[in-house]
C-alpha cells in the first residue's frame, strides 16, 4: 500500500463531495484503518484483518460506521466514506507485487489482479512532487475554479 499521506493527497485530484468533505477524507484512509493498522502492532493479525482491505469488507465496515452518526446523516456518511475508500482501492490497484495482489473478490475467490505501475515503497519518493502538485492544484482552483467564478459573479451583481 502507498503511505496514507499519498492516499490523502491523491484524493485531492478527484471530484470531492461538497458536503461533509471530512468523511471523504476518512474514507480515503478507511481500508488501511480496517485492514492494515492492527498489523503494525501485531503482525500475525494480517490474515484475520485482511478482509477489511477488500471491497466487500470496506463496504460492510463503512456501513457499520454510519451507525456512529445520527440517522439523518447516515446516508451522506456512507456515500462519502465509500467514495473515499473506492479511490483508495483504485490507487492500490496500481501497485506492483511479487506475490499476490490484493484480494479484490474476497470471499468469493482468492484470485487477484493488478495494474502494476509502481512499487508500494516508491510512493514515498513521489511525495514531495505530489505535495507541490496538490499546492498548485489548489492555487489554480482558487484562481480559476468555481469559487472564483461565483465571487466574480457576485461582484458583478453588486455593480
Amino acid at each position, binding site marked *: 500500500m502507498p*503511505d*496514507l*499521506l499519498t*492516499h*490523502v493527497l491523491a484524493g485531492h485530484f478527484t471530484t470531492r463531495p461538497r458536503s*461533509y468533505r*471530512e*468523511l471523504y*477524507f*476518512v474514507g*480515503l*484512509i478507511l481500508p*488501511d*484503518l480496517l485492514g492494515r493498522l492492527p498489523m*503494525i502492532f501485531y*503482525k*500475525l493479525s*494480517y*490474515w*484475520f*484483518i*485482511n*478482509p*477489511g482491505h*477488500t471491497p*466487500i*469488507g470496506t463496504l*460492510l*465496515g463503512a*456501513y*457499520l460506521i*454510519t*451507525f*456512529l*452518526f*445520527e*440517522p439523518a*446523516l*447516515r*446516508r451522506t456518511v*456512507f456515500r462519502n466514506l465509500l467514495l473515499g475508500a473506492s479511490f483508495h482501492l483504485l490507487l492500490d490497484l496500481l501497485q*506492483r*507485487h*511479487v*506475490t*499476490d495482489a490484493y484480494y479484490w473478490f*474476497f*470471499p468469493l475467490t*482468492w484470485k487477484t489482479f493488478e495494474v502494476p505501475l509502481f*512499487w*508500494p*515503497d516508491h*510512493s*514515498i519518493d513521489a*511525495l514531495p512532487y505530489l505535495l507541490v502538485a496538490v499546492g498548485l492544484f489548489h492555487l489554480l482552483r482558487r484562481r480559476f475554479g468555481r469559487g472564483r467564478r461565483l465571487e466574480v459573479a457576485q461582484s458583478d451583481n453588486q455593480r
Partner: protein
Amino acid sequence: MALFSDRHRWLKIGLPAALLLAMCIYSAIAGPKLMPRFADYLQDPARFDGTRFVVQFTQIKRYDGPDRFTVQDIWGNRIDVTGSIPHGEEGCFISFEAVFKSPGYLVLGEYWHIYARDTQKLVVSALALVGVMVFFLRRFKPNLRRFRFEERR
C-alpha cells in the same frame, strides 16, 4: 432510507458485523495456506527439496556474507537464503521467488523486491492519520452517552 434508519437498529448492525467477522475468520483459516511457512519446510527438508515458491512478508534479519542472508517469516521462523541483494537493508521486508533446498535453505530467484523506507512510511502515514482525524473532529464531536458523533454547532 430504510437501510440507515434506527428501525431494527441492532439487526442492521449485527448482521453486517457477523458477516464481517465470518469473513475475518475464514481469511484467518484459509489465508495462511497461501503463504509458505518456513517451519513446515524445515521439518521435512527432503520432501520439499526443489520446491519453488514465492515468499512474502519476510524480514531481512542479517547478512551472512556477500551472497547469503537470513530472513524471518511472520511466524518468527528463520531461514538462510543464498543469493545477492543490496546490503544495509536489515529490518526491511522482502518478497521473492525462491527454491527450497535440503537440508534447509532457500535459493533466491530472479524476481524479488525489498520494501525499503518502512519507518518513513509509518511516520508519514501517522501524520496523515492525525491530520484527517483533526479535520474530522473539527466538524464532529463524540457523544459518549449516545455512542455517536454529532455535528458541532
